[in-house]
């Protein structure tokens, strides 16, 4: 089995930080939203009641925004400024390209058995969508969260009824993010046949070359042509690390499923 390096250490750390923060925010946020139900009171009791939950939600939110700023700095650092227009529209970039639209159509055709598998390069259109969805989600949740953090202060700059609206924006965007992660992202990363029981690429940073040839043929061909394929070969991670990654991944997935089911079951008793 030949392993090809796919994510750098920094990228994996960003994912890890985002994952841990997201789960914390999901638990504390749902605890606040469901505080009138027994389930919400149970969630809040893990963090020391309603106000403890509130505090943790605020501080982790601020930490997440700081990490987001670090990520922006990282993006600026990674951009090849000398060959500017071309370098950020290339196939290694996470920015959407015209090919993505045609690949999406062709991929859906493949799902229906109507066409061949598209020649996908380094990123699929779905991965690009996921990345920019999180980007936009952090912008919306972060900005509304910061405004709602101190309503007495922020209402000096806007009429108080804006806070009513922003609270709803924060809620719906958070529900959308949680639903997307706990259902669609977890399914794609864990449960689909090609990745079952867990897609390790984001944790150990490498993917099997045979799998890459099937899933991202254009990337493998490009690496072969430019001769970097040999340099990209990674070594296998140790068994201990692998076990740790599995435990981490499944723990987060278990929390997500618990929140999803608990949230749906208790939604009838919810008071907004």
């Amino acid at each position, binding site marked *: 089995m030949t392993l090809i390096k796919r994510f750098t250490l920094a990228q994996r750390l960003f994912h890890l930080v985002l994952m841990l923060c997201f789960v914390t925010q999901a638990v504390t946020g749902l605890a606040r939203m469901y*505080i*009138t139900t027994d389930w919400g009171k149970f969630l809040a009791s893990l963090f020391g009641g*309603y106000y403890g939950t509130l505090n943790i939600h605020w501080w982790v939110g601020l930490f997440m925004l700081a990490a987001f700023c670090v990520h922006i700095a990282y993006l600026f650092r990674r951009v090849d400024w000398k060959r500017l227009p071309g370098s950020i529209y290339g196939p290694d970039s996470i920015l959407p390209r015209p090919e993505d639209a045609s690949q999406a159509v062709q991929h*859906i055709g*493949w*799902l*229906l*058995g*109507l066409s061949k598998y598209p020649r996908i390069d380094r990123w699929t259109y779905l991965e690009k969508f996921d990345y920019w*969805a999180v980007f936009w989600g952090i912008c919306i949740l972060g900005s509304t969260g910061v405004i709602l953090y101190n*309503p*007495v202060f922020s*209402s*000096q*700059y*806007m*009429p*108080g*009824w804006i*806070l*009513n*609206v922003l609270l*709803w*924006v924060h809620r*719906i*965007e958070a*529900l*959308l993010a949680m*639903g*997307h992660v706990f*259902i*669609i992202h977890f*399914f*794609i990363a864990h*449960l*689909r*046949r*090609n990745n079952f029981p867990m897609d390790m690429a984001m944790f150990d940073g490498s993917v099997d070359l045979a799998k890459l040839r099937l899933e991202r043929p254009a990337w493998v061909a490009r690496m072969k042509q430019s001769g970097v394929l040999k340099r990209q070969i990674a070594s296998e991670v140790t068994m201990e690390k692998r076990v740790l990654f599995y435990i981490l991944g499944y723990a987060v997935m278990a929390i997500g499923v618990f929140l999803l089911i608990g949230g749906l079951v208790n939604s009838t008793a919810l*008071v*907004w």
Partner: protein
Amino acid sequence: MTKLSGRFQSLIGHHFDVDVSHNLRGYFYAGSAFRRYLEWLLFGLFLLFIFPVRPVLGQKEVITRHYEDEGPVIRKRLITLSPTAYKIRHRITMADSHLGLRFYQYRSCIDCHPRQARNLHKMRAGISCRQCHGTEPIAGIKHHYSPMNPKRRHAYICAKCHKGASSSFAKYIVHEPNPAYLATKDTFPVLFYVFWLMAAIAAGTFATFLPYMVMLGMRELLPHNFQWSIKELLVRWIKSR
């Protein structure tokens, strides 16, 4: 450095008829267009530093001396209400808004105002009606000396818990209408439209990706000729008809 072309050259170079692109310091020559922009920008920032933008929403009544402007006079409305509506509506200007209601003292607030019980202050913080609306007699909100009057609500009611509350802060809608209801379009249109915009984005995402997820799972789980066999079945079914 290579010659700058296009917008940058035309922006700076054509003023002086020189090729400044060989050196980035060319941007900063005294009197260059870029230098002038920079100077104005710094001047603007300096002005902002001297006269910073201050929040004015909360200080309106201090500036206009709102309190002294109006006395306890009930102004005559331009369009008069129907007699029945007037009987109820004019209570918002009365000193005792529940004056003369039968069996008033045997009723709770929620008996007559059921919708008002659904608010975050009550549900989250466990605040009762009286903690904000006060003891008897409860003055109508438009009564000049009512603590709930928007002129002084922030100071008399909100600031009991939210220290430093401004009149803008008091514009927060405590008895928020359900944003999903069509009636909210008239009472709080921004909330209604923003709610449905966000809900549409969320619903659109799930409507796209849940079927996608199922399709992807099926495609990878089932034998690779499965889709072709579905197609064959379809063709056979069409031919048989």
